[in-house]
């Protein structure tokens, strides 16, 4: 998370300096500086600083949206984050969280869908959810409508000796790797069911 803090700081500095330089150059000292100085200041404030701000903001969003806190910034996710942090919760997600089986970015780690296009698909889904949230066009309680790919589980578990020793895994390896049988069929529920969610999500 330190990198995100640095990128965020760089973005804030670039945006702040950019705005100040633009105001001074265009609206305060425009007629008091030479044409050459004006052009150099415009190059700095209309090209260099905006590009730095844009790149650092994009990188901040790409990295920052992986954090659990980013998911929790939408009210609709509060019941799921509350469940993660509940030390008595029996759900799969809560057990992964409290036992530190995933060290960081726990929501993202299980919802990215591993593979060549996984990150892109994760960002696309995140964008779709964001649109539903701000346009208030989601139904409450929310339901998972997609198909949860086993690759999310197998990316970590699939190569471990513990997983490979389990007889049912050995017998069903084809079905599991082709998603014909879902891991959560035996190991669920991953999150609390609608009736078990502790905080009712409030719409924005």
């Amino acid at each position, binding site marked *: 998370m330190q990198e995100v803090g640095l990128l965020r700081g760089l973005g804030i500095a670039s945006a702040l300096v950019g705005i100040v330089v633009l105001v001074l150059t265009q609206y305060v000292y425009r007629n008091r500086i030479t044409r050459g100085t004006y052009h150099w200041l415009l190059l700095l*404030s*209309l090209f260099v600083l*905006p*590009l730095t701000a*844009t790149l650092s903001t994009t990188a901040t*969003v790409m990295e920052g949206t992986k954090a659990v806190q980013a998911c929790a910034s939408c009210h609709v996710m509060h019941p799921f984050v509350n469940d993660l942090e509940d030390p008595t919760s029996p759900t799969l997600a809560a057990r992964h969280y409290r036992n530190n089986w995933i060290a960081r970015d726990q929501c993202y780690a299980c919802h990215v869908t591993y593979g060549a296009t996984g990150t892109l698909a994760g960002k696309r889904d995140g964008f779709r959810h964001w649109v539903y*949230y701000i346009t208030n066009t989601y139904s409450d309680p929310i339901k998972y409508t997609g198909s949860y790919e086993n690759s999310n589980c197998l990316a970590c578990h699939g190569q471990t000796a513990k997983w490979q020793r389990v007889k049912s895994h050995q017998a069903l390896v084809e079905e599991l790797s082709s998603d014909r049988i879902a891991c959560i069929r035996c190991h669920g529920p991953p999150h609390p069911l609608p009736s078990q969610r502790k905080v009712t999500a409030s719409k924005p």
Partner: protein
Amino acid sequence: MEESELNQKIEELKGTVWVRRQLALAVDCTMLGLACILLFLWNGFGAWSMGLGMFIGIPLVVLGVILYLLAVAFDLKRAGSL
């Protein structure tokens, strides 16, 4: 002053006005975009602040950069440097 010379002067003046207008527009777009980005980065992750920074701020900044580059390219072409 001959008519052709006068026409040339008028065209040059029109070009200068166009460049100035483009630059002024680029400055306004970039300032607004940077302000949106700044609000988002300062506030941190939130549904509205992220939308403001990413989907309003960044397109405005990119538009400002494009307008600036167009003005520079036009100015350089007019001066015969491009």
